[in-house]
């Protein structure tokens, strides 16, 4: 989509006359055309001398529009795509994977929500290390300067089961596979995600298995509130961008969110009602400080009952 002028080169029928006709109806871009009724436009060509050519132009625009939406797929094609391309990525933590029947699902946006020190970042590190060691590239978008290579080293040693000084090869491989971006506001996040989208689209062979945004709420929460809609618009845009990346390039997406006090003092996930529509999977983490055990509970899942939970340890 874009300006009609830019289509002039490619399509002979979209000429100066046609552009003038469109401009007289206030249509300058494909988006403008979309909010107009085609029948009314066709009818309005009738009084004009070059009506036939204008109608051809309108038809040309309609066939351009057919390429402007995602293709229709039937249930079988979708299921096949899911089986072939969207696998589960193990987090390296057995009980966590068991709860999710295999781990983080490619194509899904998984949200980890929990109060501070409930293990959100640690789960991100663990998943990042495991995927980087065994499966492929990880993009780690860090908004709190919490990314720690030494911690990755520890986890890699733990997963591979050998002493820290003997894992050089594996460690290098894992470190090379993790791409870390420090991001401190929503515009920088959008920028990183857009560039990633472009790179995934244009560079054949470039593949990412896992994208982690830790934490997404610290980037979004500051722009919400007040009476302006811009903050919410940006939040929802980020949500769609994440879902598009996950589905189109078969990437597992993990975002973390903090918790705030709700009605009656109980804690609830931050970012409010409109954000609820973004993640496919919502997992709540908590820590039992006395026993140093972490717990994870399913709050929402496309095909698993909510409320199921599991305990896990962090190495």
């Amino acid at each position: 989509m874009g300006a009609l002028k830019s289509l002039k080169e490619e399509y002979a029928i979209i000429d100066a006359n046609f552009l003038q006709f469109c401009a007289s109806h206030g249509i300058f871009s494909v988006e403008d055309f979309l909010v107009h009724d085609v029948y009314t436009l066709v009818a309005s060509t009738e009084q004009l001398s070059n009506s036939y050519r204008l109608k051809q132009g309108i038809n040309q625009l309609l066939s351009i529009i057919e390429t402007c939406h995602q293709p229709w797929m039937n249930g079988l094609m979708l299921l096949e795509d899911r089986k072939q391309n969207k696998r589960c990525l193990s987090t390296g933590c057995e009980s966590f994977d068991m709860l999710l029947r295999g781990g983080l699902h490619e194509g899904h946006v998984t949200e980890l929500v929990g109060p501070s020190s409930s293990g959100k970042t640690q789960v991100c590190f663990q998943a990042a290390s495991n995927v980087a060691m065994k499966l492929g590239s990880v993009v780690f978008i860090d908004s709190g300067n919490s990314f720690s290579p030494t911690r990755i080293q520890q986890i890699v040693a733990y997963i591979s089961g050998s002493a820290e000084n003997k894992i050089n090869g594996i460690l290098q491989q894992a470190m090379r596979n993790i791409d870390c971006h420090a991001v401190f506001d929503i515009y920088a996040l959008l920028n990183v995600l857009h560039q990633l989208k472009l790179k995934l689209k244009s560079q054949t062979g470039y593949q990412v298995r896992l994208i982690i945004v830790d934490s997404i709420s610290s980037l979004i929460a500051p722009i919400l509130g007040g009476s302006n809609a811009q903050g919410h618009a940006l939040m929802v845009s980020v949500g769609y961008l994440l879902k598009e990346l996950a589905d189109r390039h078969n990437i597992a997406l993990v975002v973390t969110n903090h918790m705030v006090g709700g009605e009656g003092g109980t804690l609830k996930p931050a970012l409010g009602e409109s954000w609820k529509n973004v993640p496919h999977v919502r997992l709540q983490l908590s820590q039992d400080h006395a026993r140093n055990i972490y717990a994870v509970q399913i709050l929402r899942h496309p095909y698993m009952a909510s409320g199921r939970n599991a305990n896990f340890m962090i190495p």
Partner: protein
Amino acid sequence: MAKLWINGDESAKQMLGRVLKERPLLLLPHPLHRIPLGVSNIVEIVGPSPSAKTEILLQVAVSCILPKSWNGVQYGGLEHSVLFLDLDCRLDIFRLSQSLKLRITEANRLHKITKKQKGVAVSNAITEHQCEYDDMDLFTECMKRFSYTRCYDSFEFLAALKVLHHKLEKERNTDGSGVHVLMIDNIGAFYWINRGFSSLPQWNPNRKNLSLQSVFETVVPEIKKLLLLHPMLVLATKMVTYQVKSSYSSWASGVASEVNIGKGTYREYMPSIWQSFVTRRILVRASDDKRKLQDQVCYLAEWLLPALNLTDEFVVGDAGILTLL
């Protein structure tokens, strides 16, 4: 001459038969079963998140794509095509295939039991295998009746609607089944983004503002035009948020407030052109009452348009939506 005119064209019975054939009433599964819905109805399923809205759509989809019967087994489906416009971009096809498989297995099990009761010899191992093979055929057949597209912004939504007519026309030529169910998962998905657009500069006074208002001023006529050519039932979900203040006041005002919380206190944000386009509206929400079931969340469904003064309860399990009596 005048007599001929008075005689009429068809009897009431003939007319009813014709109308029901052209515009059949669809008996949809729980919780949409209270009101007969036909093509050209625009049904809005309203509820906060989570309230099993997408699940309802998927269960309706399963009932639609299943045939009435297949190889002598009753599946009780409607054998219609389903078009699913996913504006939330969150559907996992696995859920649909899982429910469909469970529904097929269940129907086969019932069929075997009735067969046994009638004294017919139960199939041996070979036909059992044959049975599974047939089930795959049936499954494939059903899944093909489900069409899906996702829209990442309101322009993709508009583009999909504008050219949907071509797709349906093509399909009508290849297979005969005329009736479709059009599902839109979360009609309000782009509310915030479109609100952001409305403050963009216009440059030209002629140019339409790309606001929520003008998007729906196009969406509604586009669907209307589609319905004229292709009789369809439209099911749309809409996520709503409660107004904290009023729900609190109705909570404080006493016991009878439960209906109040349901009826009036969610925030209506859709443009009036969409609101007046909706012909049926049902409200779903999670119940606060956890007495009956320890683990499962119980949901309540209540018709707002037409207003029925009763509330159905249901839970969501692996097999789909289960009613509570």
